[in-house]
């Protein structure tokens, strides 16, 4: 099998995942998209490992070994990710990423007047 088939497939998978991460609103779907991206990378790793080891005299198949690592880590990541989403949903009643904006910078509260007053208080 020519290398271009898995490579194109993996690129398509990655782009789908990227689209999902950037555009989906539901946090669970975002996590699933992340999985797609990871698996695109896994596919690349396996395909290139096979392609490279075909020419070599002896090989450790490090690409396939790394794939196993990635799968294990992806499993852990999705477990924690889903637990967080579950906790957020229980707390907020939603898993919509657009509505979870707690880290947004609010309107400017600290003006020059209040800071001067605070300083005067601190030095007094």
């Amino acid at each position: 099998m020519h290398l271009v088939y898995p490579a194109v497939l993996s690129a398509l998978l990655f782009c789908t995942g990227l689209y999902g991460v950037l555009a989906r609103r539901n946090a669970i779907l975002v996590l699933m998209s992340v999985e797609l991206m990871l698996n695109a990378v896994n596919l690349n790793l396996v395909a290139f490992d096979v392609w490279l080891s075909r020419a070599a005299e002896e090989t450790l198949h490090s690409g396939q070994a790394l794939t196993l690592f990635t799968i294990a880590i992806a499993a852990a990541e999705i477990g924690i990710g889903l637990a967080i989403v579950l906790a957020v949903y229980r707390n907020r009643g939603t898993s919509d990423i657009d509505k979870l904006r707690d880290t947004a910078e609010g309107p400017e509260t600290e003006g020059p007047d209040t800071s001067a007053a605070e300083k005067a208080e601190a030095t007094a």
Partner: protein
Amino acid sequence: MTTTTLAVLVPLLPFLGAAAGLLLGRTAPGFVRPLAVLPTLAALAAAALVAVRQGGDQAIDAHTELTPTGSVPIEFALHIDGFAALVAVLVAFVAACVQIYSTGYLREDPRYPSYAALVSLFTSAMLLVVYSGDLIVLLVGWEVMGICSYFLVGHYWETPEARAASLKAFLVTKLGDVPFLIGLFALGTDAGSFRITRVLGAVASGGIDHPTLIALLLLAGVAGKSAQFPLHTWLPDAMAGPTPVSALIHAATMVAAGVYFIARLLPVFEASQAAMVVLAVMAAVTMTGSGLAALAQDDIKRVLAYSTIGQLGYMTGALAVGDRGAAVFHLLSHGAFKALLFLAAGVIIHAAGTNSLAAMSRMSHLRDRVPDAYWTMTVALLALAAIPPFSGFFSKESVLGAAEHVATGHTDHAPGAAGWIVLVAGLLTALLTAAYATRLWLLAFRGRGAEAPDHGRQPLTMTAVLWVLAVPSLAFGGLAYRSLPGWFDGRDLTPTLLTSILGTGLALVGGLLTYGAWQRTSALAARIPLGAVAAHPEDGAGLVEAEAIASHEPVYGNIAYAPDAADPGRLLLGPLYRHAAVGFHLDALYSALFVRPVQAGASLVRFLDREVVDTYVQGAAALPRLLGAAVRRAQTGNVQTYVSALLAGTVVLAVAVLLVATGA
């Protein structure tokens, strides 16, 4: 045990007592009293033994160098001559009396453990000053006393008077200590050593290049510590401390240190005629001024404080005429009777519930309430007024005799002018001393009016100490004046006939004048009602005193002065009375000259800091704040926006790398 070991133990024991007292004060309150009294008593025994072994013979010198300290070496050195041996005995004796008295006086005070430890530390510092043969080690004791006096004068820190007085005592003595330190450095550099023996050797061989400058610098520190004009103003205010502390500061430690220091280094001062004349003028102004001021004070302890300043004036006067034997003789006898006066005053304040003489003069039978204080105080006042045969007579006459000796030109180691100044001022002060001593006695014990409140006997620890101190006040001078020259420089201390007659006559005149004035004014006393009396006289003595000090100003409008028409001092001083009561406006003068300019400077600096420096800082902060506000807008809180920005950045970087790699 060798004499050197014994001598090291003398300052060390109270120091260890102080350390143990501070460490164990809270956890083991039962040990506090033994830890306060026993080390001091042991130090007294050791000091007495050292004095016996030294016996006025060759000075004991010992030194050890712990570590090299650069150009001029600093060593642990002992230099015990007759002066050091006897003064150490006095210090340990008075400190032991004060510690025993304090166990009764402050028995209900919650801060007694730290108080007792600080008194021990104070004693140890003074003993270090007395025994030290190295000027820098002496300075350590000198400064430890300064900080201890700060803590002890401020013992009743709940009252604003005590807080102000402790700060004032500390600042004024430090004002003298800065020139003192510079003077010590100059002396050490000139002599090539800080050892007292080597310094004196260098002086004898003419090795000191700037004797006047050094002597005047050292004199500033002595004036601060020994409360001489113009740095004496802290001492009357220091009366806001507990009475035993006043006794300790005034009799044996702190104020005696300055006089003792000059006595030790007298040849350095004698090398400069100008310094001796300055010393004489300082002594004369201090003596007469304090005598006048004492005549107008209302607080019984302030009268005694001014009398201390005056008696210290006698000592510096004796030093100004080059007779350190007379100075230390007066230091010893004064130490005994002044400690007695203060401790007796503490008993009286407790019994009367007030520290105001005006209020005491409206109480009858006060002397029946405190018979021990009455009799011992009478003895001490007679000693203060230098009536023969009490000890003050012999020591004061030895000072006047030395001044007369110099004034008539029998000696060349002190200028004749100094002799005349000291002699005239000393005789005038003898009159004033007798006058204020009589006034104090008459107002305190011969009051007429309502009976003094009776709240039982004073504790035995307090009254027994009075009698112990009464013995040297009565007999020390008469017994010692023949044997003391053997301990000192060998100069005769016997009173001369002329000064004895003059001094005693003037003292009698002063006493009789005051008695006459009192006879005339005491009739007025009944017309004006009684002043303040502490509200809880059944409390411990220390609490009553704190209350009396705190209530004096609200009742009379001034801490020193009472508007009492029945005061014989008012009749004697005439128009001077008003000025004498406030110490001749010296505090107001200092306030106008130093305090207000400093405060004005401080407010100027405050203005510059707030309005000028801060403006620059805030201006510099404006641009970063603006940029920050712009950048903050990117923080939308939407994770997907962030990831999009990340992707865009990655793409840009990847394209840039590709372009660079392909060489486009």
